[in-house]
């Protein structure tokens, strides 16, 4: 193309000269503008990308399905037996339904939704280890496509895929998907809630507001502390209204949908009120709400910064030995690097909303933890875990620009998370691992009809009953005048709880004073066993 120097008639703010023909100038200016726009604006939504590059609906779901399958495989590889809380839930779910509800309402501190699922599962599949964990495995696996949906809805398909990949192998997601408790349900409901909320914020369609209320009610029916997450979602709704305040019709549309959502939430949660009322006057609630001794994971550390960081590390990398966690915390310069990489990356409402969905429940749980330190632990924050994964996925897709690099970084992350997963699942020093199954299996193989198990603390009863249903059991706080001719098996756990060592020591000393001798002792993850004859 020939360059022609031509004086131009300038507009008000034009620069006044050009070196090239106007046509070329305009087209290049347009290209430049498009490039600049694509750099400064968020990535196009999945929908626009799908439109731009035709992709059949079924093909678009292949990767998410594969990731879901991977998530199912990871969740199916169970490497541990039931622990105390699971055994308690199983014992409760073995009761009649009204009996279970009555038991829960009088002696438990949790709402009944996950127990109801467990109750159904036991009726359908029995009470084997896998059967009782089946609801968690399935719902925990469903979290993977839900992560994809949410990531795609909030950002784009690529973020959705990265989030699903993270969700498939994230150690903590796998851990709780293998536990016959409510945490996997909670994670699924929270990510679906996030999806519904952003869908509503984007489309304004009331059906999504109603769906949001449904998921929020589900959270409330699953775990009371999940209410912190619901509160955070209301804050996000408020912020969205404030952000769009200048667009009155839009605000009205949002506000009316929000009101409808809250109304439905109230209706759905209302039946829970008498149940909560009964629980609040039960003995366990008071104990639960005022325990101020144990730290995170029963480590007795209190709620210092270390506890907060530890919970954060657990949320991403899963449960590991204290030594490993200390080493990971020492890698804090990685956090500095991440913060620096985010410099100038912009602060979209979507990301800020997700950050709020992590920080607000965290802060509220911290306040709750000041009253009851035992509650400041990751499992009570499991609703925010999927949101955290979304943010991790967003960090990758935002910082790493090219597709190839994104998948390389994601691959590296997945490899890292897989290692962390293996360590979590197999390392006996994992503080959340309680090897009751192995401990009881070892000592009950040769158990005779006259053998007795003495245990401490008291709440081990259900797990011992689960694995050794036929052996008589004696609480270490009860009558220790045991005159059986058989063996006495002493089983202790939760040694980080004040006085536990002393209690077990007293039992052993008493038994030895009565002429028994220790013939076998063994140490398992967080469980110790002594056999006296």
């Amino acid at each position, binding site marked *: 193309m020939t360059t022609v120097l031509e004086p131009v008639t300038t507009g008000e703010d034009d620069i006044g000269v050009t070196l090239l023909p106007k046509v070329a100038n305009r087209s290049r200016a347009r290209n430049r503008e498009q490039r600049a726009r694509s750099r400064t604006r968020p990535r196009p939504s999945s929908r626009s990308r799908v439109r731009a590059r035709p992709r059949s609906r079924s093909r678009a779901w292949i990767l998410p399905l594969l990731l879901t399958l991977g998530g199912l495989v990871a969740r199916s590889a169970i490497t541990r037996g039931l622990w105390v809380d699971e055994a308690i839930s199983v014992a409760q779910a073995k009761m009649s339904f009204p009996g279970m509800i009555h038991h829960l309402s009088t002696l438990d501190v949790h709402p009944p939704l996950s127990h109801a699922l467990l109750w159904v599962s036991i009726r359908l599949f029995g009470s084997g280890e896998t059967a009782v964990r089946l609801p968690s495995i399935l719902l925990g696996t469903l979290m993977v496509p839900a992560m994809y949906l949410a990531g795609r809805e909030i950002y784009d398909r690529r973020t959705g895929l990265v989030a699903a990949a993270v969700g498939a192998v994230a150690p903590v997601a796998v851990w709780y998907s293998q536990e016959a408790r409510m945490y996997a349900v909670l994670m699924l409901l929270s990510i679906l809630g996030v999806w519904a909320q952003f869908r509503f914020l984007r489309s304004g369609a009331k059906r999504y507001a109603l769906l949001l209320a449904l998921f929020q009610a589900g959270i409330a029916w699953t775990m009371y502390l999940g209410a912190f997450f619901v509160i955070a979602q209301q804050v996000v709704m408020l912020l969205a209204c404030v952000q769009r305040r200048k667009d009155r019709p839009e605000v009205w549309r949002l506000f009316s949908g929000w009101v409808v959502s809250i109304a439905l939430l109230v209706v759905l949660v209302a039946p829970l009120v008498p149940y909560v009322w009964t629980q609040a006057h039960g003995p366990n609630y008071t104990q639960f709400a005022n325990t101020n001794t144990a730290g995170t994971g029963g480590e007795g550390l209190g709620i*210092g910064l270390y506890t907060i960081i530890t919970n954060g590390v657990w949320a991403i990398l899963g449960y590991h030995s204290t030594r490993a966690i200390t080493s990971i915390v020492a890698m804090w310069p990685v956090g500095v690097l991440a913060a*620096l990489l985010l410099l*100038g990356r912009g602060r979209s409402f979507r990301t800020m909303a997700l950050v709020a969905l992590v920080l607000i429940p965290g802060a509220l749980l911290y306040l709750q933890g000041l009253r009851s330190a035992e509650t400041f632990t990751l499992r009570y924050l499991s609703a925010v875990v999927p949101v955290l994964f979304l943010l991790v996925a967003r960090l990758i897709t935002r910082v790493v620009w090219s597709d190839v690099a994104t998948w390389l970084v994601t691959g590296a992350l997945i490899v890292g998370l897989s290692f962390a997963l293996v360590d979590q699942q197999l390392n006996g020093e994992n503080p959340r691992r309680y090897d009751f199954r192995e401990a009881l299996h070892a000592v009950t193989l040769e158990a005779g009809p006259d053998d007795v198990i003495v245990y401490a603390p008291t709440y081990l009863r259900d797990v011992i009953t689960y694995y050794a249903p036929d052996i008589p059991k004696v609480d270490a706080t009860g009558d220790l005048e045991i005159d059986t001719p058989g063996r006495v098996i002493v089983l202790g756990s939760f040694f980080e709880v004040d006085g536990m060592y002393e209690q077990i020591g007293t039992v052993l000393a008493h038994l030895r004073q009565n002429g028994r001798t220790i013939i076998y002792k063994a140490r398992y993850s967080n469980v110790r066993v002594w056999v006296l004859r």
Partner: protein
Amino acid sequence: MTVDSRLERSRWVARVTPARRRQLRWLIPLNVLLAGWYFGWLLQPQRIGNPYVYALLVVAELFNLVQALGYWWTMHPRAIRLPVEVPRRDIKVDVFIPTYNEPLDIVEPTIRAAMSLRSADVEVWVLDDGHRPEMEWSARRLGARYISRPTNEGAKAGNINYAVERTTAPFIAVFDCDHVPYPRFLEMTLGHFNTPTVAYVQTPQYYSNAESNGLAGAAWSQQALFFGPICQGKDSSDAIFCCGTNFVMRRTALEDVGGFPTKSITEDFLLSIELAERGWSGVYEPEVLANGLAPEDLSSYVNQQRRWATGCIASIPRVLRSRTRLSHKVSTLLSATYFLSGWAILVNMLWPVVWVLTDALPLAAVSADRFLLHFAPYFAASLVTLGVASDGRYTWNAYSLACSSFAVQISSTFAALRRKERAFVVTPKHGDTGLHLRAAAPPLIAAVILAATAVAGIAKGRSPANINNVTFALLHVTVMVAGARYGLRVRSRQRATPASVLRLNDAMERADQILERSDAATSTGTVVPAVFLDRRSAIPEERSRAS
């Protein structure tokens, strides 16, 4: 063929918006509180580990704190300066475009744009220290006047002073030859001279090639912070300084101080101090009114940084001796001492090396959580404030490029201490497409040393202190490599070719057209400017050189 990005209007809004001012209003006090929280903890005697290493840490951290406090103080929202209307349209303005060896395709758009400046009686002067006939030809063809002095004494400052003596307009606008002014440049600036003590009006330097080149983008991110909130802050405390281009100067003020100082390579900086000493003030108009070019290769960037660093560090004693208001002195000192930051970066990079070699730690028996409890809020708040103040313009690329220039600042300190006079090196306007290993060497060497330290640290054991030092070393490796990568990229020649090829081809083509016209004019008896006729013999030679 590429479009000259300088001909497009900037989308950058330099002015700090009211929303950002509101955010800064509460963020800055929060930063000060958190800095107090961190340093109150750090400076307790029980923190002292190895006393020598601790002393180094404290010095580096205090230097950073002083810079941070100065930065927050500078950016603290004060009154907003509003544009002032031009009193009348017949004010005479001499527009100076100093040039040395820049190609025609860089200078011509600037001359053309300068000729189109509105709202004043403008005379454009091309001040050519390159003594190039083709530049003279080009200037005269475009209607500008041409000055070429017999010697190049005093570099750019001397060039401008020489022109000042030969011109008469009461106001002088100066543009580096790659800075293309907008037509309303004078409209937006001349009004500020209604105040009789105003000596100069400075406007932002905007790099229009920021989007087309990674290094230029990173350099622009740094500039955006400076010409955004920092310059506006300096202006509101009446401590803005002249930045060498895109400014208008009152001739009487310039003559009052005897012109630009020629002994320094940051003549604009020293001039501002001298003007302030004599009661003159500067004004900052936070509106992009000219588009320039950022350095496009690492060597050019390093040259530019070295010039600024050496000049500013060398002027520290002058700043300390200056007889200006305290706020002006402090503000100027902060700007000059910024270029000592390389030392703080070096000290920070030393920790892992010292640990691996000597087992010495600056802090005694401090667990990661205790350290983070005090450091993390300070660090996080600083980053958030930086993000808000720069409106998200300051990026990781800018940060890593700044950090990886630590060696430039260190060598400039020595040069300034030795009072070694550096030649004024013109920043090349076209990026070189090759490797820039020499420019990238210091950060790469630092990265290699730190990587080796990390390996040695890994071999040393798995204690938390060891892991922490290894990670810290790897953090700096990442930063250094990220900064040095601009010197390791061999850019496609295709991208750089058009401008360089066009430069000669276009010049030849244009010359042919003009010569044809002049031939025709001669034959018809029209008077042809002498310059065109003089060039007739030169052009074929140039053509043969081009071929």
